Structures are given as structure tokens and as C-alpha cells.
């Protein structure tokens, strides 16, 4: 009995203690807010860039989410994944910038440039008075250093190939502290776009460059423990980096852009990006009013919209996205290590026949996919460039509207016949059947595959869907060529040169038969020629003609049978002003010019 009463007393004490702790913890958790950031009132740089948007009001915090943790802030490596590239783009600027709303290259850290008579010499005049976020002046030395690092053989990086012509690096020469001259080995159409690569701070990175440790600089460890060493020229500076939790950026007091009233941009005090586990968690946070911006996937649009009024945001239908989805046949003529052909020879004969591919294209009910799979939130796609890309989309390529009659006529013309059960056979009596491989982690793609199977049944063709692990799929498509047909999507880039590896017969992503030594067909040879021509002219009209012809040929020959593009939806809290929505790309691309009517989210 003594024990019982003793333990009851202990128990009482415990409950009391637990309640007390809970009460204090709960009371301490009212919505706190970051302190306002004091801004230095020093004069803006002599050559400050003046925003064309109307002046706004300083202050406030932009809350964003990242669906994955940045792997590094190293300028030579961050381009490899979306989260890291996004983080770095907030910090480092290039000589030129891409104005998404007007789809043109505009001055960045360089205030202007002259193009030489040979069209291969570009002289950049840097903005005077621009400083790194630690106050160190930005000069031509930083530019020369950046390109030196990119071309250094010790530091392999992804930018190098875009910043080379025929494998030759640009010649970069400092004329004086504020003038840099570039020479390219040949005329290079996307020069002004690509030269806008992030300029690195020489004064911070030269030591790592010299002792060979540049690849390890600005890692997530540095970001966490010494964020002040990661200096910037962009709108923001890195204030705090908490791995797998969040990144806190503050306004860069030395940013070179101002508004027409002379206020230094950005208007926001801070930009806080929470790192969450995947896209779904990110969308959830936005839908419940915990973040300012979200790229909403098509399948989530419906329910997210229902929360819009309650949490004060709007979901914008941004029209077709840059994503594409296509089906293609393996046309690789070679054989594997055991001497077996990659594709059964009789099947290869079908796949190589353009009439067969066109018939398949006529047999696909794209409108059905848009309505059935995307619930109307998409568009049929006829070529490699999505209509989102206003500058380079060719609207007049051949189209293949759903027409089984037409498909049958083409198949008959190519020597195919149907048996009594309605199954398609080729000239030698082989039943027409193939497997369609795709990566299992993409729901939309699998649904497209299922519609495709149904469509093909109407033509008497048996298709088997084979969902694979992403790496296995990549291995089959890129190296072992052990597949018959594939279903994949790629996200296009704005500049046509971004599609080189798909269009050119020697390209790595020339899906149907990559890495050819010499083009297999006359039309592939013509595409190669056109891709070369478009690269060697600075005349935008001429370039557009070449690129349009590439799209024409691809639509006619159907090596890649494009299906649909999904629409893009973006959600934004209603408190933001100075939006400048572009046709293509994110709504908040100009977050440095945006300001908030109410300073806090909640």
C-alpha cells in the first residue's frame, strides 16, 4: 500500500510537469516574424539598371518551397539539378540576362555590348560601381576568372560545351577594368544567351582555383557553417542554410538594380525557401497558405483551386508548358556484344518505314488523351517545340489528327494486311506487335501509354506496356538498345540549340538511333545540315527559317511521334504586385521587382 500511494504521488507530479511543459511550449509558438532588415542608404552604382516596373514598397518576406535539397552551391556544379540551380540563380548574375516576358537577351552585369564586323567579336562594357555583396568591386577580373575556371581541365563542368564552338573555348580578354572582349572560333548564334552564365567572385575563389580544390568550394557544408563567404551579385544574399530544412536569403544591399524612384531592388527583405520532401508536400504547403508560390501539377489543380479563396491565393492557367511527350521506335541497326541485332530485323523494317510511323501517328487519339488523361488541361502536340515557345514554334507543321481510316490506308500502302480476326500482319505474315517501355514513376506517361494501347487495338496492333525503373529504362534506351518502342518526355529549352542532342544524328538523345557516325537517311542528313546553318548565323529571321524546316522534317518523318503537352499552372498569393507574366517560364521570374501589399503571409 505504501508503494501504491508513493507511486500515485509520483504519477501526479509527472502529469503536472508534463502539462506545464506543454503549456509553455504551446504559448511560445505564436506566429513570430523575422525582424526588418536595415538597408544601407549608400548611393546606387553609377550604372545601376533601372527597372521598368512602377515603384513599390520595401519590406516583407517571400515564402517559397523547394521539392528537394540543393546538393551544392558550387557555381560549376549547381547547374546539374533544379534545386541547386535555383538556389545559385538567386545569388550569381551573368553578363546578360534573359527577359522571360519579352523573350530577349537584356543587359545584366554588362551594361552594353558591341558586336564586331566579323560577328565573332563581342566587346562587353561592364556596369561601373557594381559591388559584390561583401562590398568588393565587381570588375573584368571576375569575368576573366570565371571563364578561366570553366575551361580549366581540372574542373569538368556542364557549361563548358555550351561555351565552346567546335570544341574551342571562347577567347576572353580583359581590355580594362570595365571592358572585356570575347572572340568565338566561329559565328555562334546563341552566344549572347549562353555567355550570361553565372560570374564567380575571383577574390573569394581564386585560392581554391589555384590549389585545385575549386570543385569542393561552396558545398552544402560551407553554406551551413560559413554562409558569409558565399558572396553574390544577385538580388539576394545567403543568410542561413539549414540542410533539409530551409534556406534563408536576405536582400542584397549591393544589388545593381533600382526602380524609377531610385529605391534599391529587391523590395523584399527576405526570401525564405523551405525544403520539403517532394512535389506533393510542396503543393500541400501552398494549398494551405504556408507558401507564396507553387508550380501546381495538372493532377492537383482541381483541389488546390478549391482552397484559393480561403487562403488568399490565385491559381493561374499559364497555357501550354514546355514539356513534351513522345513515342518512338528503336531504329538502331546495330547488334549487341553477342552478335544479336538490337531489334528483330523484320520489326526494324516496319520501324524504318515512314508510312508505318505516320500510320501510328494517325492512329493516336491525342484529343482523347487531353480530355481523358489531362481532363482538358493540355494540348495535342505535333512537333518537338511546344506552342509555349512563341519565338521558335512552327505552327504550320504537318498534323496527324485522329483518323483510323487514314492510318489503315497508309498501312495497306506499306504492304500490311489484316487477317480474319482483324489482326495486322506484315508482308511476310508476321503479326504486328511490340512492347512499349516507359519509366514507372510518371503517372501521366503511363496513362498515355494505356490510351495508346487501346488506339492501336483498333488498327489490329498488339502493344504491351512495359513500365521500368528509371535507370533501367535509361540503360536500355541509351546504351544496351534492348527495347522496341519507348515513351518519354523532355522539357524543351527556349533556344533551338538546346535541342541539338535530339535533332542531330550524332546527338546523345537522338532517341531512335543515337550517336550516328554518318546520318542513316537523307532527311537526317538535311536536319544535321540545318542545325549547323542555324548555329552559324546571327540573323534571327534566317535562323528561324532553318529551325522551322527542322520541325517540318521531323513532323513529316515522325521519328518521334509527339502526343500532348500539359498545361502549366502556377499559384501565387494575392498580396504580390508588379507581376510581369511571361508566356513561357515561371510567373515569379522577376521576384526582385515584386512587392507585397501585406508584409506577412499569415
Amino acid at each position: 500500500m505504501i508503494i501504491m500511494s508513493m507511486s500515485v504521488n509520483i504519477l501526479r507530479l509527472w502529469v503536472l510537469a508534463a502539462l506545464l511543459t506543454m503549456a509553455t511550449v504551446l504559448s511560445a509558438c505564436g506566429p513570430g516574424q523575422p525582424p526588418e532588415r536595415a538597408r544601407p542608404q549608400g548611393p546606387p552604382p553609377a550604372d545601376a539598371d533601372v527597372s521598368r516596373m512602377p515603384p513599390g514598397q520595401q519590406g516583407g518576406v517571400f515564402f517559397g518551397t523547394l521539392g528537394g535539397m540543393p546538393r551544392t552551391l558550387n557555381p560549376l556544379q549547381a547547374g546539374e539539378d533544379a534545386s541547386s540551380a535555383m538556389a545559385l540563380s538567386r545569388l550569381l548574375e551573368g553578363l546578360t540576362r534573359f527577359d522571360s516576358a519579352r523573350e530577349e537577351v537584356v543587359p545584366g552585369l554588362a551594361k552594353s555590348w558591341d558586336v564586331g564586323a566579323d560577328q565573332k567579336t563581342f566587346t562587353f562594357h561592364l556596369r561601373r560601381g557594381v559591388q559584390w555583396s561583401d562590398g568588393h568591386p565587381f570588375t573584368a577580373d571576375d569575368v576573366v576568372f570565371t571563364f578561366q575556371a570553366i575551361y580549366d581541365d581540372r574542373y569538368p563542368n556542364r557549361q563548358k560545351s555550351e561555351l565552346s564552338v567546335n570544341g574551342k573555348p571562347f577567347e576572353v580578354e580583359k581590355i580594362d577594368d570595365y571592358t572585356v572582349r570575347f572572340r568565338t572560333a566561329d559565328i555562334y548564334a546563341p552566344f549572347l544567351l549562353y555567355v550570361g552564365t553565372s560570374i564567380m567572385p575571383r577574390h573569394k575563389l581564386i585560392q581554391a582555383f589555384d590549389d585545385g580544390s575549386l570543385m569542393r568550394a561552396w558545398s552544402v557544408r560551407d553554406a551551413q557553417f560559413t554562409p558569409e563567404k558565399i558572396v553574390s551579385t544577385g538580388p539576394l544574399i545567403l543568410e542561413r542554410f539549414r540542410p533539409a530544412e530551409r534556406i534563408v536569403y536576405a536582400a542584397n544591399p549591393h544589388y545593381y538594380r533600382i526602380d524609377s524612384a531610385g529605391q534599391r531592388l529587391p523590395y523584399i527583405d527576405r526570401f525564405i525557401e523551405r525544403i520539403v520532401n517532394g512535389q506533393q508536400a510542396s503543393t500541400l504547403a501552398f494549398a494551405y497558405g504556408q507558401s507564396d508560390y507553387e508550380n501546381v501539377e495538372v493532377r492537383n489543380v482541381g483541389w488546390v483551386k478549391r482552397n484559393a479563396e480561403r487562403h488568399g491565393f490565385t491559381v493561374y492557367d499559364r497555357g501550354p508548358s514546355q514539356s513534351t511527350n513522345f513515342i518512338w521506335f528503336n531504329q538502331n541497326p546495330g547488334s549487341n556484344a553477342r552478335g544479336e541485332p538490337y531489334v528483330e530485323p523484320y520489326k526494324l523494317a516496319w520501324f524504318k518505314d515512314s508510312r508505318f510511323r505516320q500510320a501510328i501517328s494517325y492512329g493516336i487519339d491525342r484529343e482523347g488523351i487531353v480530355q481523358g488523361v489531362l481532363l482538358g488541361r493540355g494540348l495535342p502536340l505535333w512537333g518537338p517545340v511546344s506552342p509555349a515557345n512563341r519565338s521558335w514554334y512552327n505552327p504550320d507543321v504537318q498534323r496527324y489528327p485522329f483518323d483510323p481510316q487514314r492510318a489503315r490506308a497508309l498501312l495497306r500502302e506499306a504492304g500490311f494486311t489484316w487477317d480474319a480476326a482483324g489482326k495486322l500482319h506484315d508482308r511476310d505474315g508476321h503479326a504486328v506487335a511490340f512492347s512499349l517501355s516507359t519509366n514507372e514513376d510518371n503517372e501521366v506517361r503511363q496513362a498515355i501509354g494505356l490510351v495508346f494501347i487501346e488506339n492501336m487495338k483498333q488498327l489490329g496492333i498488339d502493344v504491351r506496356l512495359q513500365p521500368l525503373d528509371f535507370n533501367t529504362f535509361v540503360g536500355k534506351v541509351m546504351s544496351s538498345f534492348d527495347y522496341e518502342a519507348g515513351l518519354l518526355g523532355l522539357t524543351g529549352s527556349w533556344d533551338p540549340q538546346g535541342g541539338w542532342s535530339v535533332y542531330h544524328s550524332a546527338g546523345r538523345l537522338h532517341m531512335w538511333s543515337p550517336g550516328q557516325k554518318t546520318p542513316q537517311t537523307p532527311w537526317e542528313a538535311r536536319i544535321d545540315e540545318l542545325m549547323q546553318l542555324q548555329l552559324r548565323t546571327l540573323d534571327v529571321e534566317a535562323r528561324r527559317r532553318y529551325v522551322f524546316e527542322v520541325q517540318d522534317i521531323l513532323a513529316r518523318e515522325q521519328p518521334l511521334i509527339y502526343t500532348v503537352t500539359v498545361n502549366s499552372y502556377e499559384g501565387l498569393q494575392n498580396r504580390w504586385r508588379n507581376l510581369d507574366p511571361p508566356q513561357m517560364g515561371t510567373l515569379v521570374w522577376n521576384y526582385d521587382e515584386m512587392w507585397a501589399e501585406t508584409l506577412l503571409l499569415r
Partner: protein
Amino acid sequence: MKALIIKRLLILIPMLLVVSLMVSLLMSLAPGDPVSQFEMMPDVDAEYLQRLRQEFGLDQPWYMQYFHWLGQVLPFSYHPDAASFWQRFDFRPNFGFSYYYRTEVWDLLVQRMPATILLSLTSLVLAWVIAIPLGVLAAIYKDSIFDRISQMLAYAALSIPEFFLALLALVFAAKTGWFPIGGFTSVEHDFLSPWGRFLDIAHHLLLPTIVLGIGGVAGVMRIMRANFLDNIRSEYVVTARAKGLAEGAVMFRHVFRNAINPLITAAGFAFSSILSGALLVEIVMNYPGIGQLVYNALLQQDAFVVQASVLMSVIMLMIGNLLADIALAMNDPRIRYD
């Protein structure tokens, strides 16, 4: 005792070698490699991919990669040309290089360790502090209504999977709004006073601690109860009672000390799971610890991060057992390791 410690540490070496070899083999069996994820990016050129594979040694067979890794692994490193004497010793263990983060694996582990250790410790403390008194009471008042209910709850707690409890906790947090929905600190954490930060972390820790602790409560309580019952029936209890000792003294001075022995072994095991035990809860509750790091490393085929975490678990298990054996000898004079 010394002999025991030396022997255990020596056994650790072949064990780590075998385990790391197995991990390397298993990781190499997965399709693709860490560079595969770049293959479908149109603007990455082939030469660069090849260069990356070369840099990482991915173009070599798995056992060559293993030996290469083995050559790098050191408990500490020595830099003979450093300026001062102390700077020559770098006591950060080298666990190799992460393909994904392009930095030392050890740095990544250090980043995530505090959060994971904190969560493991709080849940261990919670489990033991609740479970031991409950187990003792259940044994003393065997077959009472209290015993029945606590037994039933313990079975229930043992049979609910951790990840499911974690999901329930998230739903609870979302519905009531009393607790944050996952995470370790809140957005405004960095701008709070030190006391505010402490409370902020405590607020975030509460739910994961309970989720992780519940399973522990049930397990420890059942062991405690069973052992206590075994000992209550033994003859020395009759002797002690016959001597006229107070019931409280019998129970706590004699029975309790005898009954706690198996729990010391259990504590050794608990120690070994301090770094890895919270894996599922961390993933479900978006808790920025080692579990999340390792899970992502598995998805990204970041072999050396996986390798390091497995090796750390092995080392922790061995040390945990060793500590348990030592503690056992200290608690029970009958146990000797000579």
C-alpha cells in the same frame, strides 16, 4: 575487462571489412549509376558524362571501386606540412566522398547527426522513464485491472507500425493545429531568442518523440514486468520478507536490482540504434536527420553515404554491446570477464 575491450575492438576490424564489402556488392547490383540521372538532360554533352564517370571511378568494376574507397578510409588524417603541430592532425574520420553532394561524407553525417541523436535520446528517455515504473507496478499488482490494461496497451503499441503512427501524428497536428506538421525548427526559428529557439525545437520534437517512444515503452515495459515477476518468486525474496524487511526495501533494493539486468543488455541495443532507429519516422515527418540523408542516398545510389551509415551502425552496435557488458559487470558482481 581490458582483455574483453581489446578483443571486441579487434573483432570489429574484420567485421567492418566484410560488411562494407557486402554493401559495395549490393549497391553495384542496382541498375544504373549516380550519373544515370543526367542521361535524359538534352543540354548535357556525352563527353561530360564520360568525364564524370571517370572522375568517380564508375567506369571500373565494383571491386576496384571498393578497393579505391578502402584506400581513402581513415579514422583520422595527418598533414605533415601544416603550420602548427595541432593542425597536422585532422580528427575528422574519412568515409570517402559523396557523388551527389560532391563533398566529404563525414561532413554530411555531421550536418545531420545532432537532430537525429537528439530525437533518439528524447524518445529513449521517454520510453524508459515511463516503461520502468509501469513494468514494476504491473508486476507487483499482477492480474489487477491496471496490469490487464497496461498489457493490452503494450500489445497494441507493439503491433502498430511506426510509420503509421507517424502518419497519425501528422494528421493530428494538421487537424488540431497544436503542433507543427513535421520538421525540426519553424521558419522564424533563426530570428528567435535562445529561449525561444529552445522552445521551438521542443515543440517540434514532441510528436516524433512520442511516436518513436511508444514502441519502446511497450517493449521495455514487458521485459521489466516479466523479469520482475521471475524475481519476486525467488527464494531470496521469501528470505528477505522473513527477515522482516519492509516491503518497499524488498522490492526496490533486492528485486529491482536483479530484474534490471536484461534491460542493461537492451540498453546496449538501444544505443546502437541511436543513429539509424528513427529512419522511418524521419522520412514520414520530414525530420532533417541522418535517416532522411541515407534514404535519399539510396535513391540516388550515393554509395559511400550508404556505406558510411551502415558502418556507423555496425560500430555503434559493437560499442553498445560492449558498454552493456561492462555495465552488467558493474551492476552484478557475479559477472566477470576474466
